[in-house]
């Protein structure tokens, strides 16, 4: 008997050690997204990165932008240093190690007008990678800045294994029009011809956006706009006066939206093909809005009032098998809405009332556990960054409605807009 127990115990131990190995593999998978060419670092810490002074034309601007981007990325700690001359010759790694740097970004703007970055691994005393991006003119213009953001994302990828989201944009509503702003809050500008625009959403290509357009008559139509051409590509209506909250499928070939005369249902239409919109949901007179696709395009989460108050549901993308997602008891606050499915398929962000005020939360698709992210002010309309880690949302915490960015791992927040904004939609990577 005793021997058997012992043998079983040893099996258990074996099993446990295997699961330990396995979990460590899982861990590195999860944190570095499979790329092990970066530095190894402990969970929860942000390795230090030092951006040495940047040589070349507008080097100081490049350095400031890179530093800000890497800081906003929430995966690295940017080690502050004095400005000065760009170092020449080989880098003295131990000196940088003493400053707490795990990595060094050595950037320059070449005479030919390229952004050239050498990324060093301080611990390994080696070069991790070299980045070379031609900088479009004019210097400091929108496209020039965007290229520097690309450089930031590449540095982040080399050091942490995960590409950053600095080279992305957000679209939002402000003063009756739609606006676009870069991920660092710069370059905010209105998009022409979008008067009456609400609820913008990006096509996965980043080339098109869809939104609903409210006319003075109260009629809402869905508009798909080509951002490169600027002219209206197409507009859609199910035949009812209300057509709202559009969302593209991840393959970009389906556009879902809500529409209806007495109660609303989810409809879908081929945004660039033929055919008229078809009804997906069967709400029987209840309100069904805010569709958002799963990353594989096979399911749709949406807001529905079918139980008498808004909750978030999931259904198959063909409208079958509707199922309540937000089953958790939320006390007497019977209001959950505006879901956004994370691009990594791990969770669905939504807004839920707490004490009568909306807050941003996310529900895990694995075990239905709910995580609350905000508590200050009214926080609504979450939109995931393409990294599945950062969330864009509307908050009144500064006194007026503005867009804010939240890092769901550290709960760090920053204000993105300052001139008033709502209905933010984070773009895909371009």
């Amino acid at each position, binding site marked *: 008997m005793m021997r058997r127990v012992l043998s079983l115990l040893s099996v258990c131990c074996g099993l446990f050690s295997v699961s330990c190995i396995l979990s460590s*593999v899982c861990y*590195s998978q999860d944190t570095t997204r499979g790329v*092990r060419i970066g530095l190894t670092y402990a969970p929860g810490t942000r390795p230090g990165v030092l951006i040495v002074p940047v040589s070349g034309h507008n080097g100081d601007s490049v350095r400031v932008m890179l530093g800000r981007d890497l800081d906003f990325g929430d995966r690295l700690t940017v080690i502050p240093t004095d400005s000065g001359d760009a170092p020449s010759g080989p880098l003295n790694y131990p000196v940088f190690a003493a400053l707490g740097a795990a990595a060094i970004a050595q950037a320059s703007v070449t005479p030919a007008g390229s952004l050239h970055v050498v990324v060093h691994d301080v611990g390994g005393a080696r070069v991790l990678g070299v980045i070379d991006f031609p900088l479009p003119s004019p210097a400091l213009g929108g496209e020039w800045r965007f290229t520097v953001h690309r450089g930031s994302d590449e540095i982040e990828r080399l050091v942490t294994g995960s590409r950053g989201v600095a080279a992305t944009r957000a679209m939002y509503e402000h003063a009756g029009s739609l606006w676009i702003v870069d991920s660092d809050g710069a370059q905010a500008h209105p998009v022409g011809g979008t008067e009456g625009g609400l609820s913008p959403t990006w096509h996965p290509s980043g080339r098109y956006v869809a939104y609903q357009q409210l006319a003075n008559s109260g009629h809402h139509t869905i508009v798909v706009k080509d951002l490169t051409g600027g002219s209206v590509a197409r507009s859609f209506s199910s035949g009812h006066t209300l057509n709202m909250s559009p969302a593209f499928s991840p393959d970009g070939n389906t556009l879902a939206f809500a529409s209806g005369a007495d109660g609303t249902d989810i409809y879908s239409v081929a945004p660039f093909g033929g055919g008229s919109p078809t009804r997906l949901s069967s709400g029987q007179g209840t309100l069904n809005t805010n569709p958002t696709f799963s990353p594989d395009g096979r399911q749709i989460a949406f807001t529905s009032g079918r139980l008498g108050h808004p909750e978030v549901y999931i259904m198959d993308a063909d409208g079958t098998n509707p199922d309540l997602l937000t089953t958790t008891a939320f006390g007497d606050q019977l209001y959950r809405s505006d879901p956004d499915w994370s691009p990594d398929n791990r969770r669905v962000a939504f807004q839920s009332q707490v004490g009568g005020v909306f807050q941003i939360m996310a529900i895990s698709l694995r075990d239905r556990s709910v995580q609350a992210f905000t508590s200050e002010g009214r926080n609504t309309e979450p939109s995931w960054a393409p990294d599945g880690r950062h969330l864009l949302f509307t908050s009144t915490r500064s006194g007026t409605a503005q867009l804010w960015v939240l890092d769901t791992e550290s709960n760090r927040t920053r204000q993105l807009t300052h001139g008033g904004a709502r209905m933010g939609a984070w773009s895909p990577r371009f």
Partner: protein
Amino acid sequence: MIRRCARLVLVPAIVMAAGACFATRNDVRTLQGDIAVLRAENLRADSVHRAQFQQAAVQVGAVSDSLRSLNAFLARFVSDVSRFQGDLSVTLHQFGQQLLTVQELAGQTQKRIQDVKAQFERQEAELATAAQPSAAPAAQGAAGGPPTGPAQLFEAADAQFRKGSYAVARSAFEGFLEQFSNNDRAAEALYKIARSYDLDGIAISADSVYALVVEKYPTKAEFAAPSLYKRALAAKAANQPAKAREYFQKIIDSYPRSLEASLAPDALKALPKRP
């Protein structure tokens, strides 16, 4: 461009692989708990259970073997990924194949764990019966099986389904149907097998199992109606409007109160006109 595509594939691939082993890890943890409980029970139990116990130990060994192979594969996979990132020497196709293997291994491991779990459930139940001295022989003779088995098996499968481990859920539901084909929830199990194919994007298998649901459980409207609807959409996608029309019409005629019956008229209208 290739690099970009590669990354697009890479991220979901890693997430899926990582997801699969998360599931496995939790299950191992649960299993460890089960083993501990069983060990305690066994210290008290009679030698009658020794044989079963030994068998369980063998199975645990098998589980740990498959975990080991999964682990080894994952390690290889990870190093391949980094090489892939480095020199793009591995083609996307190979990459996909490897991912499938990871899923397959994870699925097998899960299946084994499910089996062991089911056996533990059974043994626990028997231990409980044995604890009641007079009733024990009669109960064993009459019931001849575990009284709590089907519900627990179904729940375990459904839990996998809910958290999106469709391959695992599928094999667990299949195991449930092998043992309890006449259970009340058999129709639901079969329907969820079809859905698990559907949600994994394996359309042909999904359609054939939906067909089976319609055939075997025509009176269970909650499963037959959506199965028919899925079949209709599949027929439409396969450019077989006549077949699609027939299925949509059957939903309206046979299951007028179903959700799908309220969608079918619109779907019928959207079908291309008869030639």
